C-alpha cells in the first residue's frame, strides 16, 4: 500500500492524449469513430435532402396493391389479381426452393468430387481435377446461360410431338416429354381424395414414417432375442409386410393413379411441367458451388493426419469404411465452417436467376414490382433485408450444426 501511495502522481495533461502510448490508441479510435459518424451523417442527410427535393416520400403501401402481372413458375397460389406482397412471397419461395435444392446437390456433388480427387485411380482423380478447374474458373452466369441455351436449343418444341408421325417422341411409355420449354411429367392424382392432393400426400408420408418406426421396433426386438438366445428370428417377411402393405393399401383406397401429359393446343396440359430454367439454374448452381465444396472437402480430408487412416488400415478396415468411419467424421470439423460461406454464396448467387427467366425474389420484387411501381429504393431495401435474414438464418443453422460436430473437449 505504502509503495503505491509514494508513487509520483502523474498529473493528466492534454498532450498525453497524443504522446502517451496508453491513451493514444483510444484517442485515435474515438477520432475515427467521430469521422465515420460524420461521414454517414452527411450521406444520410444528403439522401434525405435530395429525396425531399425530388418530392419522394418512401412508402411501402404498394405492397398491398394489385400486382397485375403473371409469374411463370410458382409453388404457391398466385394470379395477377393478387397483391405485390403475394408476388414477393412467390419470389421468396422460389428463391428458397432453388437454394435448398442447390445446397443439397452441391454438397453431394462436392463431397463426391472432393473424395474422388484424392483417389488412387489416376483417371478418376484427373477427371475430378478437370471438373473442378473448368467449372470454378468460368463465371457462373456464363454457365447458366450455356446450360439454359443448350436445354432450349437442343430439345424439340412441343409442336414437334404433334401428328401421326411426329418428329419427337415421348419417353417412358408416353409419360415423359422433354421439350424446349419444360419437361412434362405425369402427376400423381387420387380419385377418392381426402380433400386435396396435399393432404393425401401428407397422409401417405405419415403412413410410411409410421411403418418405418414399427419396422425398426421389430428389428430391435429381433436383435434383443438374438442377444438373449443366440438365435435371430426371421424378420424379412414381417418387414416386407409392415413396410409395403399399409402404404399400398392406402394408395388403393385413395384411388391413386397418374395423370399423363397430353399435347393440347400449343403446350402439354395435364401432369406436371418442370420448366427448363429450373433445371438450368439448379444444375448451374450445384455444379458451380460443387467445385468449391470439393476443394473444401479435399482440404478437410488432407487435414486429417495420415496416422489416422494408417491406423484404420492396420485394424483391417477397408478403404471405403476408413473414409466414412474414420477420416470424414474428423474432416467435418475442418469442412463445416467454410461450407457455411459456400451455402451463403449459393443462396446469393441464385439472384442470377433472372438472367434465365427464373422468377426468384430479385425477378419479382426487384424486377417486375420495382418497375411497375417505380419504388426502387423501397424494393431494394426490402430485398437487402430479406437476403440478410435468409443468410443469417443459414449461418445460424450451420453454426449450430458445426457446434454438434466440433471437437468436444472435456
Amino acid at each position: 500500500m505504502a509503495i503505491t501511495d509514494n508513487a509520483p502522481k502523474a498529473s493528466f495533461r492534454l498532450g498525453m492524449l497524443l504522446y502517451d502510448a496508453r491513451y493514444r490508441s483510444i484517442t485515435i479510435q474515438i477520432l475515427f469513430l467521430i469521422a465515420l459518424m460524420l461521414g454517414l451523417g452527411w450521406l444520410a442527410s444528403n439522401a434525405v435532402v435530395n429525396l425531399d427535393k425530388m418530392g419522394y416520400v418512401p412508402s411501402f403501401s404498394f405492397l398491398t396493391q394489385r400486382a397485375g402481372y403473371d409469374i411463370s413458375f410458382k409453388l404457391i397460389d398466385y394470379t395477377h389479381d393478387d397483391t405485390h406482397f403475394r408476388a414477393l412471397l412467390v419470389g421468396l419461395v422460389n428463391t428458397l426452393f432453388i437454394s435448398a435444392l442447390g445446397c443439397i446437390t452441391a454438397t453431394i456433388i462436392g463431397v463426391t468430387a472432393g473424395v474422388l480427387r484424392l483417389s488412387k485411380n489416376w483417371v478418376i482423380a484427373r477427371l475430378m481435377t478437370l471438373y473442378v478447374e473448368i467449372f470454378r474458373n468460368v463465371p457462373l452466369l456464363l454457365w447458366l446461360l450455356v446450360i439454359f441455351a443448350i436445354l432450349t436449343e437442343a430439345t424439340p418444341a412441343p409442336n414437334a410431338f404433334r401428328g401421326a408421325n411426329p418428329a419427337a417422341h415421348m419417353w417412358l411409355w408416353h409419360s415423359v416429354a422433354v421439350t424446349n420449354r419444360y419437361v412434362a411429367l405425369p402427376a400423381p392424382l387420387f380419385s377418392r381424395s381426402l380433400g386435396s392432393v396435399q393432404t393425401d400426400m401428407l397422409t401417405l408420408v405419415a403412413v410410411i414414417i409410421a411403418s418405418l418406426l414399427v419396422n425398426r421396433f421389430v428389428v430391435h426386438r429381433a436383435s434383443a432375442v438374438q442377444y438373449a438366445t443366440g438365435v435371430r428370428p426371421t424378420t424379412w417377411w414381417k418387414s416386407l409386410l409392415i413396410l409395403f402393405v399399409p402404404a399400398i393399401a392406402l394408395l388403393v383406397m385413395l384411388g391413386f393413379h397418374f395423370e399423363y401429359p397430353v399435347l393440347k393446343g400449343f403446350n402439354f396440359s395435364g401432369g406436371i411441367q418442370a420448366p427448363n430454367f429450373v433445371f438450368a439454374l439448379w444444375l448451374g448452381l450445384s455444379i458451380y458451388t460443387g467445385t468449391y465444396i470439393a476443394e473444401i472437402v479435399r482440404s478437410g480430408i488432407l487435414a486429417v493426419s495420415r496416422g489416422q487412416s494408417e491406423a484404420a488400415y492396420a485394424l483391417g478396415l477397408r478403404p471405403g469404411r476408413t473414409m466414412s468411419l474414420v477420416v470424414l467424421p474428423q474432416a467435418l470439423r475442418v469442412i463445416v465452417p467454410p461450407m457455411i460461406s459456400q451455402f451463403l454464396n449459393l443462396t446469393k448467387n441464385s439472384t442470377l436467376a433472372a438472367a434465365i427467366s427464373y422468377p426468384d425474389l430479385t425477378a419479382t420484387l426487384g424486377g417486375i414490382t420495382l418497375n411497375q411501381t417505380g419504388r426502387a429504393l423501397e424494393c431494394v431495401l426490402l430485398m437487402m433485408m430479406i437476403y440478410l435474414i435468409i443468410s443469417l438464418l443459414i449461418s445460424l443453422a450451420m453454426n449450430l450444426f458445426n457446434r454438434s460436430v466440433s471437437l468436444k473437449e472435456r
Partner: protein
Amino acid sequence: MNRTVFLGALTVAGLVASFASASTLDEVKARGVLNCGVNVGLVGFAAPDANGKWTGFDVAICKAVAAAVLGDPNKVKYVPTTGETRFTSLSSGEIDLLARNSTWTFSRDVDLKFTFTGVNYYDGQGFMVRKDLGVTSAKELGGATICIQTGTTTELNLADYFKTHKMTYTPIAIKTDAEGKQQFLAGACDAYTTDRSGLAALRAGFEKPDDYVILPEVISKEPLSPLVRQGDDQWADIVRWTENALIAAEEYGITSANIEEMAKGTTNPEINRILGTEGNLGAMFGLDKEWAKRAIAASGNYGEIFEANIGVSTPIGLARGLNAQWTQGGLMYAPPFR
C-alpha cells in the same frame, strides 16, 4: 443489422440522388454534351451501326435536342438503358432526357414524377408468331407460352387481355430484345409480344423475316413519348417544342434539303417564326433564335426521320398510320409557334 441495411441504403440513395440543383439547361450547356437515354439496341429506334454510331428514330430526337441546345447534333452521349433501368437513370440525373419508346401512362407521369414531352409515336401492343403455326388471331393464343420483356406496360396489358378473353398463358419474362429474340427463334415461346413497332423492328433483324407474322389485334394504346424529370419546366419545354418543331416542319414543308433556302425568309410568318427569321421565340426559354432551325437540320423533319429509320422503304417497313400528320388523317399535330 437492420440498422446497417438502412444506413447502407441511405448511402446508396445519398450517392445516387446527389444531383445538383442547377437547371438542366445550364448543366447541359456547362457539360457541353447531352446525356440521352436510349434503347440498348432496337433496330430502327436506337441501335449502334457497324461503325458504332447510334442511329434511329429515338436517336434523332436526341440529336435534334442537342442541336437546339448545344448547336451540334453530335454532342450527345448515348446511354443505353433497359426496360428496367431507364426510369432510375432519368430520376437519378444520369441522363437528361429519355427517348426510349416509353409509354406515357398516368402513374409514370404522376407517381414516378416525370414529364412526358409529347407523343412521337402512337403505338399499340401486338403479337408476333411463326407463320407455320397457322395462328391468324390473338384470340387463338389460349394456352400459349409468350415471351415478354419484363418491366414494361406490356406485361400488365398481356395479363389483362388474357383475363378479359378468359384464356390462359405462360409468360417467359426476358430482359432485353436480344434475349427475347434468341428464345423466340429457338421456339421456346409460341408468341412474342411488345409494341407493334418493336415487333416490326425485331422481325427486321431476323434471318428469315417472312417466316413470321404480326397478328392483327392491337391490345393496348401505347403512346410513346420522350420524357424528362418533373420540376424543370424550362427543360421540358425545350424538349417538347423541339419535337413540335420537327412535326410542324413536316406540316409546313421544311425539309433538311430546303431549310437553308427557307431560312432566308418566306411568305409564311409561321415558318419564319420557327426558323427564327421573325421574332425571337428561342430567347423565351434560354436559347438563341435559330434553335429550331438547327434541330430540323440535324436529321430532317418528323416525316424524314420516320421514313429514314422505320418507314416503308426500310427493313422495318412501318406505315405512317396514326403517325401521319393531322392533315393526312393521322394524329401528329403541332401547336402553333407564336
